[in-house]
Each structure stands twice: as structure tokens, then as C-alpha cells.
């Protein structure tokens, strides 16, 4: 039965998603053209592109994580807490085993342990959120609001609320390096994550199950899917991505702190919604999310070119764009529905 209907369903979804991608692409070009026209001297400089490519990966990767959980019908509001906690674990280890000024060989060895340590913290943090949601049945919003507090709390306790600096220089040098002089490492990490998650969602059984679970959890269960296991793995994946983002943040700031990136949660939800991820679950692609990330980065870098514009206008723009994106998606869905009933 599923074999017969799946291709047709997929075809319709694919068509809708193509339209969504085209819309996003037009929006991206518009923002790009606008910013280029306003300040061509600053915006079109190669340096600006490199700095943008260094900035967006940290929240872009978290946005992919949130999107995954949203596609599965939930939401992960603990990404920022997870990122900071992972970064702090890595930073603590680095400072303990290879303080600033240690020989490069020793630092490299420490980094090779610190990174898996951070990733493990991210996985564990995600697994705990997933456990609360799937096994205990706590609504995802509240469970992850709780874990966000908990992880940020642990991060504060571990650092007494102060930034952990004195990291070995090599770490931030590696993290901020540019391949061939124009491909920043964070950008490469984003590309790797985007391709990997894109393939996982589109081509693997796990990806299909995530979509099914988000579309209709009960139907997924009756189709023989172990919802609990899929959910836990989804949140673990989100935690893992958050820890990657945390490692990038740590390299960029050359330190780790419990309250870095506090505004990223909203921004990531905004990116997911803008990128066409359905807030009720079941729909969304990494391609859409990536376009939304780029739109936001162009907007944000564009705003930076005007020094007299207060940073807080950004809050208005993020909030406003989020609501407009919701209204826009709503209008599109309504038109589609009307067309469907006419047929």
C-alpha cells in the first residue's frame, strides 16, 4: 500500500517544495540586490563575503538541528544551551591539558580529545531531551525549555558565569583558518553538515521515518515505526549539531561562556519557519533552511553597514520577518487549498 501511494505523495510534496525554493531564491536575490545597491563599496567586497561565510555557520548549523526536530513534529529550544555546554566541556579539557603556550603537538593531541568530548556532550544532551519527550511524554516545548535552563545552569556552575579564555591559540587558528585563502573552516563545516543531513532526510529510512512521524505520529506507530527511538535519535542529532555549532563559536570568540549566542534560539526558529519547515511537522528541507540562513545573513550584514542603526532594530526585524513569513506561508497554503477544492 505504501509503495503505491508514496511516489505520488512524494511528487506533490516535491512540487510544493520546488515552489517554496523558488520563492526563497527570489527573496535571496532581492535582499542581495538591495544591499549591493545601498552600499556597493562595502557589501560587494570579497572580505565581506568571507566574513559572512564565517558568521552564519554557527547559527545555521543550529537552525538545521531545530529544523530536524520541527520536521519530526517537535522543537528543540535547548540548542544554544547544548552548544555552550559542549563548548565549555571542550574548553575545560583544553585548558586543563594544554594551557595557552603549550607546544603545538600537545595542543593538537588535546584538541583531538576535546572535540569528541564536546560532540559526546551534545549527543548526551540531545538524548536526554529526547528521552523526556518520547518516554515521559513531556511536550517538546516544555521539555526543551527545561533542558535549556538545565544545560545553561550547568554551564554557569562549571564556569561560575565567567568566560573561559586562555585557550591554546592553535584551536582558534584552526577554527578560523581559510582553505585556499577564501573558504573559512566554519563554512566548510556548514557545507558538510548541510549535505549530510540533507542526504539523511531525503535518502535514508531514518529520514523517511522522521517525516512520517512529523506528519502523523499515530499513523507512523501503526505503520510499525518505533516512534520513541526515532524521536530520541532526532534529538540526539540536533544535540550533535548544536555541539558542532558550539565548537565553532568557541573558535570564533577564542573562549567559551554560558550565555553566548542568547539570541540564536529565536533566530533559528525564524530561519526554520522562513525556510519552509512546517511548524506542525512533516515538511521541510535542508535546502530551504540553507536559503533562509543566507537571506538572514545578507540582511544582518547589510544592517551592519549602517552604524547609526541600533542593534535592537534587529530584534524588530527578526520578530517582524518571522510573523510575515508565517502570514505568507499561510496565504500560500490557503490559496493552494482553495485551488484543490475547485478541482
Amino acid at each position: 500500500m505504501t509503495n503505491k501511494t508514496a511516489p505520488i505523495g512524494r511528487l506533490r510534496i516535491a512540487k510544493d517544495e520546488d515552489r517554496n525554493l523558488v520563492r526563497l531564491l527570489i527573496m535571496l536575490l532581492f535582499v542581495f540586490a538591495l544591499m549591493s545597491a545601498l552600499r556597493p563599496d562595502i557589501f560587494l567586497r570579497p572580505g565581506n563575503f568571507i566574513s559572512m561565510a564565517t558568521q552564519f555557520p554557527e547559527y545555521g548549523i543550529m537552525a538545521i538541528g531545530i529544523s530536524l526536530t520541527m520536521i519530526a513534529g517537535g522543537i528543540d529550544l535547548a540548542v544554544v544551551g547544548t552548544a555552550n555546554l559542549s563548548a565549555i566541556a571542550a574548553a575545560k579539557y583544553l585548558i586543563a591539558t594544554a594551557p595557552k603556550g603549550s607546544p603545538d603537538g600537545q595542543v593538537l593531541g588535546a584538541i583531538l580529545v576535546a572535540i569528541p568530548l564536546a560532540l559526546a556532550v551534545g549527543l548526551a544532551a540531545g538524548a536526554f531531551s529526547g528521552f523526556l519527550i518520547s518516554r515521559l511524554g513531556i511536550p517538546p516545548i516544555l521539555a526543551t525549555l527545561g533542558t535549556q535552563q538545565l544545560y545553561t545552569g550547568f554551564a554557569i556552575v562549571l564556569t561560575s558565569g565567567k568566560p573561559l579564555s586562555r585557550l591554546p591559540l592553535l584551536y582558534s587558528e584552526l577554527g578560523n583558518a581559510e582553505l585556499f585563502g577564501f573558504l573559512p573552516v566554519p563554512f566548510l563545516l556548514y557545507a558538510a553538515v548541510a549535505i549530510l543531513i540533507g542526504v539523511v532526510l531525503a535518502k535514508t529510512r531514518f529520514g523517511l521515518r522522521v517525516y512520517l512521524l512529523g506528519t502523523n505520529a499515530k499513523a507512523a506507530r501503526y505503520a510499525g515505526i518505533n516512534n520513541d527511538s526515532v524521536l530520541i535519535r532526532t534529538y540526539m542529532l540536533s544535540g550533535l549539531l548544536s555541539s558542532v555549532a558550539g565548537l565553532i563559536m568557541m573558535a570564533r570568540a577564542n573562549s567559551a561562556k554560558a550565555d553566548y549566542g542568547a539570541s540564536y534560539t529565536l533566530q533559528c526558529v525564524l530561519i526554520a519557519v522562513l525556510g519552509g519547515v512546517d511548524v506542525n511537522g512533516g515538511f521541510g528541507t535542508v535546502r530551504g533552511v540553507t536559503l533562509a540562513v543566507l537571506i538572514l545573513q545578507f540582511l544582518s550584514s547589510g544592517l551592519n553597514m549602517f552604524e547609526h542603526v541600533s542593534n535592537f532594530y534587529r530584534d524588530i526585524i527578526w520578530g517582524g520577518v518571522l510573523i510575515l513569513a508565517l502570514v505568507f506561508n499561510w496565504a500560500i497554503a490557503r490559496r493552494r487549498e482553495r485551488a484543490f477544492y475547485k478541482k
Partner: protein
Amino acid sequence: MIEYKRLVRRTEPYILGAIILLSALIQARSGQFFTNNNLVDLTRSMVVPALFAIGAQMVIISGGIDVSFTAVASLAMYATTRILLPIDYAGNVALAYAMGASFGLVMGALNGVLIAWFRFPTLVVTLGTSSLFVGIMQGVLGAHELPVPQSMREHGQAFLFSVHNAQLDLSSEMPVTILILLGILALVFLIMRYTMLGRGIFAVGGDEVSAQRAGFNVLGTKMFIYCFVGAVAGIGGIARASMMQNCHPTNLNGMELTVIAAVVLGGTRVSGGLGTITGAMLGVALMTIMSNSLILIGVPTYWQKVFTGAIIIIGTGVSAWQVNASQRRLATRRLATGKQLG
């Protein structure tokens, strides 16, 4: 027997038990809990969270979640202060409250339209609007710390009675703002319990489709909730500024989480349709005692967030587990009867 069973299934007795245990622990460790000034101070710091909790609870009962009320309160409080300060307004403080409530109502109406009319998810909407409100306050209005006008200053200093702790030579005053809290509590209690509107809020939270079929005006009910909650948040903001004797644009940030945690802890079901005001107030009391007294029992303030997180998880976990357990009981009973029939 039935009465006893009903009591055991409810959350309030457990919260009350937790409060008593925690108080006893703090008293044993510090000897400073059951002193008249500490009790008055605790009540004093409960006023504003309790006002917010009333609103947060109405939203949760209706099946939503609102994280924007601190932003609404801050903006309402700031806008009111900005308008009244230049003339150092000294008339009746009711005007300040009316202004704060109106600003809050308008902001709540925006939430209401997006949630009731467009039917967008409440969390995403309120995340967006709170960013919008914070941006308006700090960007457009260029918010910074302000003193409050005379009427609010006097209102905040006014007290019902004062207690004196001879041992520590400390005095504490019961602020008049507690009367505002009690008034709104009574109003909400009456609405939720004795009006069709209140029953409609429970019905919408229990099952929106059934509520619609039963003849409740779902759209109107939701609009009312968000407007009302916005107005209460505005009132909370004015009470806060008056009691603090200054208007600080950002120090309410983050309170939304503790308030929501308190409400859920007090037995309000997170999926909607169930909850009592008594429970919510007990939840607020527990959270307030905890955050005010961690220092008294020698826990460093760094642990505050860990405790908040743990309480949210435990509180929501217990209530989710109770719901699951009752569903499981139902399922096994059905299975058992099915087997008998077979």
C-alpha cells in the same frame, strides 16, 4: 474514600507538602524562615510573578503557551513611565494602571489575532512578538533605566502594615500592590469558574473541535484570552516599576520561564483543559521560596538556573506521567474487557 482518592490524584496537596518541607528545611538550616519579616518579604516578591502566573495559566489552560508576557509588561511599563514622567504625574495611580493595561491589551490583541484568526502556533507567535516588543522598546524608544513619576513612587511606597524583626532589627512592609493581585485573582476566579467564557477557555483547551461543536465561540474566546492576558501583564509591569521605585527595561527578561514553570508545577496540564488558580499560586510560592532562600541555606546563586530547569523537567514530567498512566489504565481496562468478551 472517593474524596481521599480525588485528593491523592490532585497536584495541590503535593505542592503544599513540598512547600512545607522546603520551609522546614530552610528554617532548620538558617532559623530565618519563619520570621515575620521574611514571610512579608516573600509575599512581596510573589506579587508580580503571581500576576504573570494568572495570565500564563489562562493561556496554558486554553492549550497554548505564551512567552511574550514579560516583553509586553516591560514595554507597557516603559511606555507608561515615559509618558507620565515628564509631567511627574502626581494624580491617581489608577491612570498609570489604565495606561499600562491598555498598552498591554493592544499588544495582547496582536498575539490574539495571530493565534486566534491565523491559527499560528502560539510558541512561534509569542517568540516573534516578544522580539518585536523588545526591539520597539530598546530600538525605537531607546530604553534606559528611568525613575518613576510621583504617583507611582508613592503607590509603590504605600504599605498596608509593617512588621519588625527585633532579633535582626529589620522591618518589612506589606505593599498595597497585593490588593491589586487579590482583586485580579478574584476576578479571574469568578470568570473561570462561573461564566460561560471561563468554561469556554477550559473547553477550548480540552478539545478545540469539541468546543466548537458544543457551540463555544473559539475565535472569540482565544481573542479574549490574549487581550486579557496582555492587559494583566501591563498591570504587572506597572506594579513592578512602582514597587522597584524605578523602571528598568530589561530586568524582567527570563522571568517568563520561572512563571511558566510555576504554573505547570502547580498542576496546570500542559496540553490544556485543566488547572486551578490555587495550584498556580502554590507553584509561584514554591518557586519564590526556592529562589529567595537558596542563599539562606547556603546554595550559591550559580545553581539558580539548574534548579529552575530541574523543576520544570520534574514538574512537567510528573504531570505528563500522570496523564500517560491514566491513559494506560484505560487501555488495559479496555483490553481486559475485550478479552472477556472474546
